[in-house]
Protein backbone atom coordinates (compact mmCIF):
# COMPACT_ATOMS: atom_id res chain seq x y z
CA UNK A 1 0.00 0.00 0.00
CA UNK A 2 2.72 2.45 1.08
CA UNK A 3 4.80 1.39 -1.89
CA UNK A 4 1.94 2.04 -4.29
CA UNK A 5 1.42 5.50 -2.75
CA UNK A 6 5.16 6.21 -3.02
CA UNK A 7 5.04 5.26 -6.69
CA UNK A 8 2.16 7.68 -7.30
CA UNK A 9 3.94 10.51 -5.51
CA UNK A 10 7.15 9.92 -7.48
CA UNK A 11 5.29 9.86 -10.78
CA UNK A 12 3.41 13.10 -9.99
CA UNK A 13 6.62 14.88 -9.03
CA UNK A 14 8.49 13.70 -12.12
CA UNK A 15 5.62 14.84 -14.33
CA UNK A 16 5.82 18.31 -12.76
CA UNK A 17 9.60 18.59 -12.80
CA UNK A 18 10.54 17.28 -16.24
CA UNK A 19 8.88 19.98 -18.38
CA UNK A 20 10.28 22.73 -16.12
CA UNK A 21 13.81 21.42 -15.81
CA UNK A 22 13.91 19.93 -19.33
CA UNK A 23 15.87 16.90 -18.33
CA UNK A 24 15.12 13.31 -17.47
CA UNK A 25 14.44 13.10 -13.74
CA UNK A 26 15.53 9.97 -11.90
CA UNK A 27 14.34 9.55 -8.29
CA UNK A 28 17.82 10.07 -6.85
CA UNK A 29 18.91 12.97 -9.10
CA UNK A 30 20.16 15.98 -7.10
CA UNK A 31 17.78 18.65 -8.42
CA UNK A 32 19.72 21.51 -6.86
CA UNK A 33 23.12 20.48 -8.21
CA UNK A 34 22.26 21.12 -11.87
CA UNK A 35 21.66 24.87 -11.53
CA UNK A 36 18.30 24.59 -13.28
CA UNK A 37 16.37 25.26 -10.08
CA UNK A 38 15.59 28.98 -9.84
CA UNK A 39 14.48 30.54 -6.56
CA UNK A 40 10.99 31.06 -7.98
CA UNK A 41 10.74 27.47 -9.16
CA UNK A 42 11.88 26.07 -5.81
CA UNK A 43 8.90 27.80 -4.18
CA UNK A 44 6.58 26.65 -6.98
CA UNK A 45 7.72 23.12 -6.21
CA UNK A 46 6.80 23.49 -2.53
CA UNK A 47 3.35 24.81 -3.46
CA UNK A 48 2.85 22.08 -6.06
CA UNK A 49 3.71 19.40 -3.55
CA UNK A 50 1.27 20.85 -1.00
CA UNK A 51 -1.57 21.12 -3.47
CA UNK A 52 -1.06 17.76 -5.17
CA UNK A 53 -0.81 15.73 -1.98
CA UNK A 54 -2.92 17.73 0.47
CA UNK A 55 -0.10 18.34 2.91
CA UNK A 56 1.31 21.52 4.46
CA UNK A 57 5.08 21.90 4.40
CA UNK A 58 5.85 24.34 7.16
CA UNK A 59 8.43 25.32 9.76
CA UNK A 60 11.18 22.76 10.34
CA UNK A 61 10.15 20.66 7.30
CA UNK A 62 11.26 23.45 4.95
CA UNK A 63 14.82 22.24 4.52
CA UNK A 64 16.79 21.70 1.36
CA UNK A 65 17.42 18.06 2.31
CA UNK A 66 13.68 17.34 2.04
CA UNK A 67 13.56 18.64 -1.56
CA UNK A 68 16.93 17.64 -2.97
CA UNK A 69 15.64 14.56 -4.81
CA UNK A 70 12.33 13.06 -5.86
CA UNK A 71 12.98 10.28 -3.32
CA UNK A 72 13.45 12.82 -0.51
CA UNK A 73 10.24 14.66 -1.42
CA UNK A 74 8.38 11.37 -1.63
CA UNK A 75 9.53 10.45 1.87
CA UNK A 76 8.44 13.89 3.11
CA UNK A 77 4.98 13.59 1.55
CA UNK A 78 4.45 10.13 3.03
CA UNK A 79 5.59 11.28 6.47
CA UNK A 80 3.37 14.40 6.41
CA UNK A 81 0.45 12.38 5.10
CA UNK A 82 0.76 9.94 8.00
CA UNK A 83 1.06 12.77 10.51
CA UNK A 84 -2.20 14.22 9.13
CA UNK A 85 -3.85 10.81 9.47
CA UNK A 86 -4.10 10.45 5.70
Amino acid at each position, binding site marked *: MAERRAGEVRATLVAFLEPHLRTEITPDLDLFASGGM*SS*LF*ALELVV*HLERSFGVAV*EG*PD*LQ*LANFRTVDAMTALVLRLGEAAGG
Partner: protein
Amino acid sequence: MDEGAVTALVDDLVGDRAGGWDLAGRLPADVIGRLGAAGALCPDVAAEFGGLGWPSLATGELTAFVGSRCSSLRSLMTSQGIAAWTIRRFGSRAQRAEHLPALTSGLLAAVAFSEPGAGSDLAAMTTTIACDGDEVVVSGHKVWVTGAEYAGELLVFGRHGEGAAAALVPAGAAGVRIERVPDPLGCRAAGHAGVRLDRVRLPRGRMLAAAGVPLDWLVTSALTHGRLSVAWGCVGILRACLAAATRHATVREQFGRPLAEHQLVGRHLAELLVAEQAATHVCAHASRCWDEGRPEQVPAAVLAKHLAASGAARGAAAAVQVLGSAGAGDGHPVARAYRDAKLMEIIEGSSEISQLLLARRAVAVWA
Protein backbone atom coordinates in the same frame (compact mmCIF):
# COMPACT_ATOMS: atom_id res chain seq x y z
CA MET B 1 -15.44 42.08 10.85
CA ASP B 2 -16.60 41.68 7.29
CA GLU B 3 -15.15 43.47 4.28
CA GLY B 4 -17.68 46.29 4.37
CA ALA B 5 -17.05 47.03 8.04
CA VAL B 6 -13.27 47.09 7.63
CA THR B 7 -13.53 49.32 4.57
CA ALA B 8 -15.79 51.68 6.53
CA LEU B 9 -13.28 51.72 9.39
CA VAL B 10 -10.47 52.67 6.98
CA ASP B 11 -12.69 55.31 5.40
CA ASP B 12 -13.45 56.76 8.83
CA LEU B 13 -9.85 56.67 10.10
CA VAL B 14 -8.16 57.98 6.96
CA GLY B 15 -10.78 60.28 5.45
CA ASP B 16 -8.96 63.05 3.63
CA ARG B 17 -6.13 63.29 6.16
CA ALA B 18 -3.46 61.36 4.26
CA GLY B 19 -2.08 64.51 2.62
CA GLY B 20 -1.38 65.99 6.04
CA TRP B 21 0.31 62.78 7.20
CA ASP B 22 2.49 62.87 4.09
CA LEU B 23 3.56 66.46 4.78
CA ALA B 24 4.21 65.71 8.45
CA GLY B 25 6.02 62.46 7.58
CA ARG B 26 4.07 60.64 10.26
CA LEU B 27 1.02 58.42 10.67
CA PRO B 28 -1.09 58.91 13.82
CA ALA B 29 -0.48 56.11 16.34
CA ASP B 30 -4.21 55.59 16.91
CA VAL B 31 -4.84 54.92 13.20
CA ILE B 32 -2.18 52.20 13.12
CA GLY B 33 -3.33 50.89 16.50
CA ARG B 34 -7.01 50.65 15.65
CA LEU B 35 -6.46 48.96 12.29
CA GLY B 36 -3.95 46.61 13.87
CA ALA B 37 -6.29 45.71 16.72
CA ALA B 38 -9.02 44.92 14.19
CA GLY B 39 -6.68 42.50 12.39
CA ALA B 40 -7.06 44.69 9.31
CA LEU B 41 -3.34 45.09 8.64
CA CYS B 42 -3.03 41.37 7.84
CA PRO B 43 -6.61 40.26 7.10
CA ASP B 44 -5.49 37.00 5.47
CA VAL B 45 -4.35 35.49 8.79
CA ALA B 46 -6.56 32.53 9.64
CA ALA B 47 -9.31 32.79 12.24
CA GLU B 48 -7.58 30.12 14.36
CA PHE B 49 -4.86 32.70 15.02
CA GLY B 50 -7.32 35.52 15.70
CA GLY B 51 -7.23 36.78 12.11
CA LEU B 52 -10.06 37.78 9.82
CA GLY B 53 -9.36 34.72 7.65
CA TRP B 54 -9.85 36.52 4.36
CA PRO B 55 -8.77 35.01 1.04
CA SER B 56 -6.03 36.76 -0.92
CA LEU B 57 -8.58 38.31 -3.26
CA ALA B 58 -10.49 40.12 -0.48
CA THR B 59 -7.21 41.04 1.20
CA GLY B 60 -6.06 42.51 -2.10
CA GLU B 61 -9.18 44.61 -2.58
CA LEU B 62 -8.76 46.05 0.94
CA THR B 63 -5.08 46.69 0.18
CA ALA B 64 -6.12 48.58 -2.96
CA PHE B 65 -8.65 50.62 -1.00
CA VAL B 66 -6.08 51.58 1.63
CA GLY B 67 -3.58 52.25 -1.17
CA SER B 68 -6.03 54.56 -2.92
CA ARG B 69 -6.13 56.71 0.23
CA CYS B 70 -2.63 56.46 1.66
CA SER B 71 0.34 54.48 0.34
CA SER B 72 2.21 54.98 3.63
CA LEU B 73 -0.51 53.17 5.56
CA ARG B 74 -0.76 50.54 2.82
CA SER B 75 3.01 49.97 3.15
CA LEU B 76 2.48 49.00 6.78
CA MET B 77 -0.12 46.45 5.63
CA THR B 78 2.42 45.00 3.21
CA SER B 79 5.00 44.59 5.99
CA GLN B 80 2.53 43.17 8.49
CA GLY B 81 1.29 40.73 5.85
CA ILE B 82 4.80 39.56 5.00
CA ALA B 83 5.66 39.09 8.68
CA ALA B 84 2.51 37.08 9.37
CA TRP B 85 2.94 34.93 6.27
CA THR B 86 6.59 34.21 7.03
CA ILE B 87 5.75 33.16 10.59
CA ARG B 88 2.96 31.00 9.19
CA ARG B 89 5.20 29.29 6.65
CA PHE B 90 8.57 29.11 8.43
CA GLY B 91 7.57 29.05 12.09
CA SER B 92 6.85 25.99 14.19
CA ARG B 93 3.33 25.21 15.37
CA ALA B 94 4.16 26.79 18.75
CA GLN B 95 5.63 29.91 17.14
CA ARG B 96 2.55 30.39 14.98
CA ALA B 97 0.29 30.01 18.01
CA GLU B 98 2.37 32.50 20.00
CA HIS B 99 3.09 35.24 17.48
CA LEU B 100 0.24 35.34 14.95
CA PRO B 101 -2.46 36.29 17.50
CA ALA B 102 -0.25 39.22 18.54
CA LEU B 103 -0.08 40.46 14.95
CA THR B 104 -3.86 40.33 14.61
CA SER B 105 -4.52 42.21 17.84
CA GLY B 106 -2.42 45.34 17.59
CA LEU B 107 1.28 44.47 17.53
CA LEU B 108 2.93 46.02 14.47
CA ALA B 109 5.76 44.14 12.75
CA ALA B 110 8.33 45.50 10.31
CA VAL B 111 10.37 43.30 7.97
CA ALA B 112 14.12 43.82 7.54
CA PHE B 113 15.70 42.57 4.30
CA SER B 114 17.90 45.23 2.70
CA GLU B 115 21.39 46.16 3.83
CA PRO B 116 23.88 48.80 2.72
CA GLY B 117 25.55 46.21 0.46
CA ALA B 118 22.54 44.01 -0.26
CA GLY B 119 19.61 45.53 -2.16
CA SER B 120 18.61 43.67 -5.31
CA ASP B 121 21.39 41.19 -4.49
CA LEU B 122 19.97 39.95 -1.21
CA ALA B 123 22.35 36.97 -1.33
CA ALA B 124 25.03 39.47 -0.32
CA MET B 125 23.39 40.09 3.06
CA THR B 126 25.80 39.87 5.98
CA THR B 127 23.47 40.02 8.99
CA THR B 128 23.94 36.89 11.09
CA ILE B 129 21.53 34.98 13.30
CA ALA B 130 23.67 32.57 15.32
CA CYS B 131 22.79 30.11 18.08
CA ASP B 132 24.54 30.43 21.43
CA GLY B 133 23.25 27.88 23.91
CA ASP B 134 19.58 28.65 24.60
CA GLU B 135 19.87 32.00 22.88
CA VAL B 136 20.27 33.45 19.41
CA VAL B 137 22.50 36.40 18.68
CA VAL B 138 21.49 38.79 15.87
CA SER B 139 24.07 41.18 14.40
CA GLY B 140 23.89 43.39 11.36
CA HIS B 141 22.73 46.60 9.75
CA LYS B 142 19.43 46.82 7.88
CA VAL B 143 18.28 49.80 5.84
CA TRP B 144 14.98 51.17 4.55
CA VAL B 145 12.91 49.02 6.88
CA THR B 146 9.30 50.09 6.24
CA GLY B 147 7.41 50.87 9.44
CA ALA B 148 10.42 50.33 11.72
CA GLU B 149 9.74 53.65 13.39
CA TYR B 150 6.33 52.42 14.59
CA ALA B 151 6.90 48.68 14.94
CA GLY B 152 6.95 46.69 18.15
CA GLU B 153 8.73 43.77 16.49
CA LEU B 154 11.20 43.47 13.63
CA LEU B 155 11.32 40.32 11.54
CA VAL B 156 15.01 40.24 10.66
CA PHE B 157 16.38 38.05 7.87
CA GLY B 158 19.99 36.88 8.10
CA ARG B 159 22.53 34.16 7.55
CA HIS B 160 22.42 31.06 9.69
CA GLY B 161 25.09 28.41 9.15
CA GLU B 162 25.04 27.37 5.48
CA GLY B 163 21.57 28.78 5.00
CA ALA B 164 19.35 31.52 6.37
CA ALA B 165 16.98 32.26 9.21
CA ALA B 166 14.50 34.88 10.33
CA ALA B 167 14.27 36.15 13.88
CA LEU B 168 11.56 38.16 15.62
CA VAL B 169 13.41 40.96 17.37
CA PRO B 170 11.53 43.24 19.80
CA ALA B 171 12.20 46.82 18.70
CA GLY B 172 13.09 47.67 22.28
CA ALA B 173 15.59 44.83 22.80
CA ALA B 174 19.05 45.76 24.05
CA GLY B 175 21.39 46.38 21.10
CA VAL B 176 18.67 47.54 18.67
CA ARG B 177 18.95 51.06 17.30
CA ILE B 178 16.30 52.54 14.97
CA GLU B 179 17.45 55.42 12.75
CA ARG B 180 14.67 57.18 10.89
CA VAL B 181 15.20 57.88 7.16
CA PRO B 182 14.86 61.68 7.31
CA ASP B 183 13.10 62.60 4.06
CA PRO B 184 12.05 59.69 1.85
CA LEU B 185 10.96 60.44 -1.73
CA GLY B 186 7.67 58.60 -1.32
CA CYS B 187 5.51 56.88 1.27
CA ARG B 188 6.82 59.64 3.50
CA ALA B 189 4.75 58.66 6.52
CA ALA B 190 5.60 54.94 6.34
CA GLY B 191 8.21 55.17 9.08
CA HIS B 192 11.18 53.96 7.03
CA ALA B 193 14.25 53.50 9.16
CA GLY B 194 17.66 51.92 9.31
CA VAL B 195 18.05 49.27 12.01
CA ARG B 196 21.35 48.53 13.70
CA LEU B 197 21.55 45.23 15.52
CA ASP B 198 24.54 45.04 17.83
CA ARG B 199 24.81 41.48 19.18
CA VAL B 200 21.14 41.38 20.12
CA ARG B 201 20.54 38.35 22.37
CA LEU B 202 17.14 36.69 22.30
CA PRO B 203 15.62 33.43 23.52
CA ARG B 204 16.13 30.75 20.89
CA GLY B 205 12.38 30.51 20.33
CA ARG B 206 12.52 33.92 18.63
CA MET B 207 14.26 32.34 15.62
CA LEU B 208 11.72 30.78 13.22
CA ALA B 209 11.91 26.99 13.18
CA ALA B 210 12.97 26.64 9.54
CA ALA B 211 16.45 27.99 10.39
CA GLY B 212 19.03 26.74 7.90
CA VAL B 213 16.64 26.94 4.94
CA PRO B 214 18.24 28.34 1.73
CA LEU B 215 18.15 32.14 1.82
CA ASP B 216 16.38 32.42 -1.51
CA TRP B 217 13.51 30.17 -0.34
CA LEU B 218 12.95 32.35 2.68
CA VAL B 219 13.18 35.56 0.69
CA THR B 220 11.15 34.34 -2.30
CA SER B 221 8.32 33.16 -0.08
CA ALA B 222 8.23 36.44 1.84
CA LEU B 223 8.54 38.54 -1.30
CA THR B 224 5.81 36.65 -3.13
CA HIS B 225 3.38 37.75 -0.43
CA GLY B 226 4.87 41.25 -0.47
CA ARG B 227 4.73 41.57 -4.26
CA LEU B 228 1.07 40.71 -4.32
CA SER B 229 0.43 43.32 -1.64
CA VAL B 230 2.46 46.02 -3.40
CA ALA B 231 0.72 45.18 -6.68
CA TRP B 232 -2.74 45.66 -5.11
CA GLY B 233 -1.46 48.86 -3.49
CA CYS B 234 -0.55 50.10 -6.97
CA VAL B 235 -4.08 49.30 -8.14
CA GLY B 236 -5.16 51.68 -5.39
CA ILE B 237 -2.75 54.38 -6.57
CA LEU B 238 -4.19 54.05 -10.09
CA ARG B 239 -7.75 54.29 -8.79
CA ALA B 240 -6.93 57.44 -6.83
CA CYS B 241 -5.31 58.95 -9.93
CA LEU B 242 -8.21 57.96 -12.16
CA ALA B 243 -10.69 59.55 -9.78
CA ALA B 244 -8.72 62.78 -9.40
CA ALA B 245 -7.90 63.11 -13.11
CA THR B 246 -11.41 62.42 -14.41
CA ARG B 247 -13.05 64.77 -11.87
CA HIS B 248 -10.65 67.56 -12.69
CA ALA B 249 -10.96 67.02 -16.43
CA THR B 250 -14.74 67.30 -16.35
CA VAL B 251 -14.80 70.48 -14.22
CA ARG B 252 -11.83 72.44 -15.41
CA GLU B 253 -12.38 74.34 -18.65
CA GLN B 254 -9.75 75.71 -20.99
CA PHE B 255 -10.29 77.09 -24.51
CA GLY B 256 -14.04 77.12 -23.77
CA ARG B 257 -14.59 73.43 -22.96
CA PRO B 258 -13.80 70.86 -20.27
CA LEU B 259 -10.32 69.33 -20.37
CA ALA B 260 -11.81 65.87 -20.98
CA GLU B 261 -13.03 67.07 -24.37
CA HIS B 262 -9.52 67.90 -25.43
CA GLN B 263 -8.27 64.83 -27.23
CA LEU B 264 -4.75 64.82 -25.85
CA VAL B 265 -6.12 64.99 -22.31
CA GLY B 266 -8.64 62.28 -23.18
CA ARG B 267 -5.79 60.01 -24.13
CA HIS B 268 -4.32 60.36 -20.63
CA LEU B 269 -7.69 59.38 -19.14
CA ALA B 270 -8.00 56.40 -21.47
CA GLU B 271 -4.52 55.14 -20.62
CA LEU B 272 -5.20 55.56 -16.90
CA LEU B 273 -8.32 53.43 -17.27
CA VAL B 274 -6.39 50.78 -19.21
CA ALA B 275 -3.66 50.72 -16.56
CA GLU B 276 -6.15 50.41 -13.69
CA GLN B 277 -8.09 47.62 -15.39
CA ALA B 278 -4.99 45.70 -16.47
CA ALA B 279 -3.47 45.92 -13.00
CA THR B 280 -6.73 44.87 -11.36
CA HIS B 281 -7.02 41.79 -13.57
CA VAL B 282 -3.44 40.56 -13.18
CA CYS B 283 -3.67 41.10 -9.41
CA ALA B 284 -6.96 39.21 -9.22
CA HIS B 285 -5.43 36.38 -11.25
CA ALA B 286 -2.41 36.15 -8.94
CA SER B 287 -4.65 36.23 -5.86
CA ARG B 288 -6.83 33.45 -7.25
CA CYS B 289 -3.69 31.38 -7.89
CA TRP B 290 -2.76 32.00 -4.25
CA ASP B 291 -6.23 31.12 -2.95
CA GLU B 292 -6.32 27.93 -5.01
CA GLY B 293 -2.80 26.93 -3.95
CA ARG B 294 -1.53 26.90 -7.51
CA PRO B 295 2.25 27.02 -8.08
CA GLU B 296 1.70 29.73 -10.69
CA GLN B 297 1.09 32.15 -7.79
CA VAL B 298 4.87 32.67 -7.60
CA PRO B 299 5.55 34.04 -11.12
CA ALA B 300 2.06 35.60 -11.22
CA ALA B 301 2.94 37.76 -8.20
CA VAL B 302 6.11 38.99 -9.94
CA LEU B 303 4.16 39.79 -13.10
CA ALA B 304 1.40 41.57 -11.18
CA LYS B 305 3.87 43.65 -9.19
CA HIS B 306 5.85 44.64 -12.28
CA LEU B 307 2.80 45.53 -14.36
CA ALA B 308 0.98 47.35 -11.55
CA ALA B 309 4.03 49.32 -10.36
CA SER B 310 5.10 50.46 -13.80
CA GLY B 311 1.46 51.25 -14.65
CA ALA B 312 1.09 53.26 -11.44
CA ALA B 313 4.30 55.22 -12.11
CA ARG B 314 3.15 56.11 -15.64
CA GLY B 315 -0.44 56.69 -14.54
CA ALA B 316 0.52 58.97 -11.67
CA ALA B 317 2.74 61.03 -13.98
CA ALA B 318 -0.19 61.34 -16.39
CA ALA B 319 -2.54 62.35 -13.58
CA VAL B 320 -0.17 65.14 -12.48
CA GLN B 321 -0.04 66.23 -16.11
CA VAL B 322 -3.84 66.39 -16.36
CA LEU B 323 -4.25 68.31 -13.10
CA GLY B 324 -1.38 70.64 -13.86
CA SER B 325 -0.87 73.22 -11.14
CA ALA B 326 -3.99 71.96 -9.31
CA GLY B 327 -2.17 68.71 -8.50
CA ALA B 328 1.33 70.06 -8.14
CA GLY B 329 1.14 70.99 -4.45
CA ASP B 330 2.90 68.53 -2.16
CA GLY B 331 0.46 66.33 -0.28
CA HIS B 332 -2.14 66.44 -3.08
CA PRO B 333 -3.33 62.91 -3.92
CA VAL B 334 -1.73 62.91 -7.39
CA ALA B 335 1.49 64.53 -6.15
CA ARG B 336 1.74 61.81 -3.50
CA ALA B 337 0.85 59.16 -6.04
CA TYR B 338 3.64 60.41 -8.31
CA ARG B 339 6.27 60.07 -5.57
CA ASP B 340 4.85 56.91 -4.00
CA ALA B 341 4.47 55.05 -7.31
CA LYS B 342 8.13 55.65 -8.18
CA LEU B 343 9.15 53.80 -5.02
CA MET B 344 6.87 50.92 -6.00
CA GLU B 345 9.13 50.36 -9.03
CA ILE B 346 12.01 49.83 -6.61
CA ILE B 347 10.78 47.84 -3.61
CA GLU B 348 9.95 44.12 -3.40
CA GLY B 349 12.10 43.46 -6.45
CA SER B 350 12.93 46.40 -8.74
CA SER B 351 11.39 46.53 -12.20
CA GLU B 352 14.69 45.24 -13.58
CA ILE B 353 14.86 42.30 -11.17
CA SER B 354 11.22 41.51 -11.98
CA GLN B 355 12.09 41.55 -15.68
CA LEU B 356 14.99 39.15 -15.12
CA LEU B 357 12.70 36.74 -13.27
CA LEU B 358 10.00 37.06 -15.95
CA ALA B 359 12.51 36.57 -18.76
CA ARG B 360 13.58 33.30 -17.19
CA ARG B 361 9.94 32.34 -16.83
CA ALA B 362 9.26 33.18 -20.48
CA VAL B 363 12.10 30.95 -21.62
CA ALA B 364 11.03 28.10 -19.32
CA VAL B 365 7.46 28.15 -20.60
CA TRP B 366 7.72 29.30 -24.19
CA ALA B 367 11.11 28.43 -25.66
